[in-house]
């Protein structure tokens, strides 16, 4: 066991990232390159896509077939749905949410972005910053992805020209200054030839920065989660029906923010009762402290009435409690958002109903302009709305906490998830 711990196999960090690019930006090639160069493509997988490429009359092995898994995707040559890919280096394990780049697939990009630490945005060096680039950057910012890496791809087709790279970088920065992204980095690459993907390019000695892989392996993600505001949505109450645990009452859940310790004074919402934490049981047994995103069971000193949907917080740091929520919604269904319509709403472990009180404006995601003249919110639209819930919610601004600041809206007739929302 010791040699595995020593070489890091059992002790790697997990980085989730999403990739966004327009059609033909070389996104699949880039992912293929990352997987191939990190030796994550297996021979039978490679052989299968080689045969498929051949059957389709393609001359080179089409790495896009690695990510297009469904029959319809292969037939139409397009990616329909988010696909998840996995690879690891000795330093980190990676989960890629590979999202289709088509105009109509904003909902997939939003889905992939919702759990990502980092977004890779691909720009074709010949085309520069185009509308879709802006859309991708906007969604990364809207979904609160802490790190954005802009890969200026196909540098080989612009003679590895530094001025082209610098111009695109400047254009992007100009647009991004209107957005809320903390950390943006730029890398000139050629996914096809591998320049600056895993290995440093010999053709761009003017570029002093890191390769994409180095960045993915080393970027600091320890501060991505909110470790300040303590939020524990109660997911399930554990009450063993055994004599030896007669008095056991544990509140199970996943910590959404902050660090909890036995002895902490806490408040339970919505009741407002206060007590102390008696003990915290982690998956490995009792722990001295527990932090986001751990799944634990909290026991309290006093016997209170606590159930699923309640939230345990620190007495002196409580979330907002209200029935009125202002949210930026991304609409994910062809049936339009109904003003005054009623929807089921899920937030942390709370489930309730809500009514759409107001649609304030829609966002033109190419220009970031607010549109107030057209308030029809359809598939892939992003709009600011206000809703009123049937009972009070305990929440934070999405910008402060992606877990206690997000909601989904569900059509009560079809049970489909129709909207995703970020609380403002």
């Amino acid at each position, binding site marked *: 066991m010791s040699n595995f711990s020593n070489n890091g*196999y059992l002790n790697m960090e997990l980085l989730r990232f999403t990739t966004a690019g327009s059609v033909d930006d070389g996104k699949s090639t880039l992912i293929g390159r990352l997987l191939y160069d990190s030796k994550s493509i297996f021979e*039978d*997988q490679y052989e299968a896509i080689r045969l498929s490429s051949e059957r389709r009359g393609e001359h080179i092995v089409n790495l896009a077939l*690695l990510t297009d*898994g469904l029959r319809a995707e292969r037939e139409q040559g397009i990616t329909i*749905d988010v696909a998840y890919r996995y690879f690891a280096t000795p330093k980190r394990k990676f989960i890629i949410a590979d999202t289709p780049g088509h105009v109509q697939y904003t909902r997939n990009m939003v889905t992939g972005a919702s759990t990502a630490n980092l977004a890779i945005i691909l720009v074709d060096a010949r085309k520069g910053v185009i509308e879709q680039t802006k859309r991708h950057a906007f969604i990364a910012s809207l979904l609160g992805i802490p790190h954005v890496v802009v890969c200026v791809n196909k540098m080989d087709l612009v003679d590895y020209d530094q001025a082209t790279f610098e111009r695109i970088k400047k254009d992007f920065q100009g647009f991004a200054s209107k957005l809320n992204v903390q950390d943006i980095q730029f890398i000139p690459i050629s996914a096809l030839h591998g320049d600056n993907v895993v290995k440093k390019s010999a053709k761009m000695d003017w570029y002093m920065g890191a390769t994409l892989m180095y960045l993915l392996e080393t970027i600091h993600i320890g501060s991505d989660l909110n470790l300040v505001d303590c939020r524990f949505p109660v997911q399930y109450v554990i009450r063993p029906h*055994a004599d030896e645990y007669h008095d056991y009452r544990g509140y199970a859940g*996943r910590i959404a923010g902050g660090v909890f310790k036995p002895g902490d004074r806490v408040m339970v919402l919505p009741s407002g009762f206060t007590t102390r934490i008696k003990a915290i*049981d982690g998956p490995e047994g009792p722990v001295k402290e527990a932090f986001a995103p751990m799944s634990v069971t909290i026991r309290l000193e006093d016997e209170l009435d606590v159930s699923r949907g309640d939230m345990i917080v620190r007495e002196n740091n409580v979330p907002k409690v209200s029935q009125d929520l202002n949210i930026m919604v991304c609409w994910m269904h062809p049936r339009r958002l109904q003003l005054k319509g009623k929807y089921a709403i899920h937030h942390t472990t709370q489930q309730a109903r809500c009514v759409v009180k107001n649609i304030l404006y829609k966002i033109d995601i190419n220009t970031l302009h607010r549109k107030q003249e057209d308030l029809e919110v359809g598939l892939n639209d992003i709009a600011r709305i206000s809703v009123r819930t049937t009972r009070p919610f305990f929440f934070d601004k999405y910008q402060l906490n992606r*877990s206690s600041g997000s909601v989904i809206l569900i059509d009560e007739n079809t049970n489909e998830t129709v909207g995703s929302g970020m609380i403002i």
Partner: protein
Amino acid sequence: MQRYILNHLRELEAESIFVIREVVAQFEKPVLLFSGGKDSIVMLHLAVKAFKPAKLPFPLLHIDTGHNFQETLDFRDNLVKELDARLVVGSVQESINKGRAAEETGSNASRNVLQTITLLDTLEEYGFDAAMGGGRRDEEKARAKERFFSHRDEFGQWDPKNQRPELWNLFNGRKIQGEHFRVFPLSNWTEMDVWQYVLLENIEMPSLYFAHDRECVNRKGVLLAKSEYIRLMDGEKWEKMHIRFRTIGDMSCTGATVSNACTIEDIIQEVAAARVTERGSRADDKRSETSMEDRKKEGYF
């Protein structure tokens, strides 16, 4: 702040425990699909952690094709006894006897596809509304598109082109009467993660995963273990080999790999060096390019 970081195995563990608890909170009658393979063993291990010190709040369901390795069945029964868990067995043989399913014929005959019928019948018979499976997205390209909470219509069908979007950790388990969900708590685990976790947690595994001597036949590159369910074709012969299994399914379609891996550490090293995927030795996946998607649409695991 460095100390407030979970390593990848603990983060995956936290995610899976959250998902399993969410199933119990959102559904009335969940069940855990247990095949006796490493993924379902790890899933069961996580489920025990999710509810301790209480007992498992759901039974286990094993779809028994009648073509299982005896080692798998013994392991299953011991584990169930040890955990004091409830086990439901859905029998493919019974489905055949009742005329619900018809045995395939030919030298490559397998009961793999028939499992779907027995599975759906058993879910319906007991009224299970959520079935947790050990499927992982890294296993197969159709599985890479799966949700954690995967909706099935009243026919048990999966509609991959029309799945509910799944964001953050907000899971939508709403359904109408007669529909059910498949839930995959291990979605984000890879084969390597599973073995590393087995090592970290010291989880007992069936002997089939470790190298041993066994008589096998090499059929188009797939090494099939000797059993009454395999009939030799022209030119084939049984050979004694030193092998282990990377996945455990039916004796009729699970291929072995030549191996010397005797410990979990050995297996991890072997997986790290492997050049083919674990399902590369599964004859059931080789029937066509989209055989997994096709089976899953009908209601397969």
